């Protein structure tokens, strides 16, 4: 066993890449849940993003348009959920689960003739000067732009909910839909908007999988990443910056345990495989139980159907 053969720089750089899909999907779901909607269809929107992004990328031969297509694909699917739950007032849990099944099925139908095709690679932008900083340059400044986008968007979401008027309105709607309605805010329109944005994030996360991380289309390729993203939102107690902690710890331990196995560490492999889940849960339990925080931070109206007549 030789720990020195694990290069921490490569390790950190690859954990950031591995965490990007769940970070993106979790960011989107956080926005949705902040507005009081529980969309369990993240997995379905991700896989639709993965295939629609793949199709656009291959047909137009452009990874960038592919990623946009991925986001829109996820967004369009989420609109279905938005109409069903907001306009038709269906149960959100059931609709979300149905959305996942629908997405998985539709994706394999759409992707039927796209298996075994190699998409054009997404180039990594060359960041002069910064990328040449020893260590930090390789960890932070040699990624593709989706990675930067995911990091920046988490920060923006944090700022958005903290300091912008519209962010506060969304939070108000999520905390108490009836009061927000009484104050004159349009609950349903706002929620459909957040659902769409959440869908776009999930779609982009899926597109990142099929265009960058794996890069290929395979049926069912999200393999549960959407569910992990959902869990991250809960464990981060709806605080955007904590998504970093959750996603990077999860991604980090996934990569670390694979590397530890590759160097032949004398530890139970079953235990190593469990570590990403265990460590993420422990870390998030610790930070969410800190004394500074008063009570539960679950949005008050999460998952509740909004009836205007009340």
């Amino acid at each position, binding site marked *: 066993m030789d720990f020195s053969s694990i290069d921490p720089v490569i390790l950190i750089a690859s954990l950031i890449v591995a965490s990007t899909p769940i970070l993106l999907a979790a960011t989107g779901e956080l926005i949705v849940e902040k507005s009081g909607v529980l969309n369990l269809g993240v997995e379905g929107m991700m896989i639709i993003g993965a295939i629609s992004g793949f199709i656009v990328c291959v047909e137009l031969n452009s990874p960038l348009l592919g990623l946009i297509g991925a986001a829109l694909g996820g967004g369009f699917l989420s609109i279905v959920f938005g109409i069903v739950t907001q306009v038709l007032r269906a149960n959100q849990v059931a609709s979300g689960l149905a959305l996942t099944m629908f997405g998985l099925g539709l994706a394999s139908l759409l992707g039927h003739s796209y298996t*075994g095709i190699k998409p054009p690679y997404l180039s990594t932008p060359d960041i002069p000067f910064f990328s040449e900083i020893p260590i930090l340059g390789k960890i932070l400044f040699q990624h593709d732009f989706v990675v930067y986008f995911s990091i920046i968007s988490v920060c923006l979401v944090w700022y958005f909910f903290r300091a912008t008027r519209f962010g506060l309105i969304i939070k108000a709607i999520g905390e108490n839909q009836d009061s927000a309605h009484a104050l004159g805010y349009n609950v349903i329109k706002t929620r459909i908007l957040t659902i769409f944005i959440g869908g776009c994030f999930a779609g982009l996360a899926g597109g990142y999988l099929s265009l960058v991380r794996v890069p*290929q289309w395979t049926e069912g390729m999200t393999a549960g990443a959407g569910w992990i993203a959902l869990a991250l939102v809960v464990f981060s107690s709806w605080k955007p910056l904590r998504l970093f902690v959750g996603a990077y710890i999860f991604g980090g331990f996934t990569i670390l345990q694979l*590397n530890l*196995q590759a160097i032949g560490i004398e530890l139970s492999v079953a235990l190593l495989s469990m570590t990403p889940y265990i460590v993420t849960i422990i870390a998030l339990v610790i930070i969410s139980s800190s004394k500074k925080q008063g009570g539960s931070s679950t949005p008050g109206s999460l998952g509740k159907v909004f009836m205007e007549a009340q």
Partner: protein
Amino acid sequence: MKKIINFFLTLSGILLLGSGVFAADLKVGFVYVGPPGDFGWTYQHDQGRKAVEKAFGDRVETTFAENVPEGADAERVMTQMALSGHDMIFATSFGYMDPVMNVAAKFPNVKFEHATGYKRADNVSTYSARFYEGRSVIGHIAGKMTKSNVVGYIASFPIPEVVRGINAAYLAAKAANPNVKFKIVWVFTWFDPAKEADAANALIDQGADVLMAHTDSPSPLTVAEERGVFAFGQASDMLQFGPNARLGSIIDDWDPYYIARVQAALDGTWESTDTWDGLAPGMAALGGFHEKIPMDVRAEAMNLAVAIAGGRTHSFTGPINRQDGSAWLAEGETADDGTLLGMNFYVEGIEGDIPQ
């Protein structure tokens, strides 16, 4: 609410009646662990299902359930199949073993075929291919082609079949190149393209320049292509996923077996059997070799394949010691099927432990 339920009950009744009118002689269900579009393990089983449909036309109706988790869900799915009039069920993953036995006990008139398992009953047959024979051949190629002398191996679950594959590949690679080392990563999944890709990257980071995989998706091959190392197609040919990286492939060909078993069921001659076919009958087949493999290595690999198929040599021919140094096979002795089917130890030279 009651009305809605009634509506669906009526609807499903009509559908059931409808299916009764057009009943085929035999209804065959397939249970898949992954999606048919995985272009690996499940894809090949689905090809087998299509071959059955093509061979028998209207006489046989086939259905399939995909992405069925191993365990309680599998039991539910197979019970559902048995209840809905299936006469024969192919359960195509090792982890369906106990569910198959449970459901088979409840439905003695339904014929079960379980892939890669070892438990049988009057209405449960088992079948598998000697993939390890193919792994000997690609192990030889891996040993010859590695420059760093590190072969990375992505393993799924610590079951005898996977351990056997690692041992067979290692022995052949070692014979071809005494300096070869295997680095093995267990991912504890059959199908998770992203995780398989992560494992492939980790192995390449640790110096592997030839990858072998015992998981179901082509993603390790895609990573190998991207990073300029070699890999093999697994279960299916997978050439299109890594035109420069794919040195060869082991292909599972279930078509003849599935057709023969369905034929037996139609003729009323079906009985519980245990089938374990290798390179010779072609249940495990080899895909084309890459032109980057030198001619002499290609010839050696071909000879090895022919010798194994012809029974002149065996993937496990002594002297072979177990990992702990204790003797397993004496000079010239070959492994018996019983030991191979329950294989739970590494052979001498492989580092690391099999997860328990």
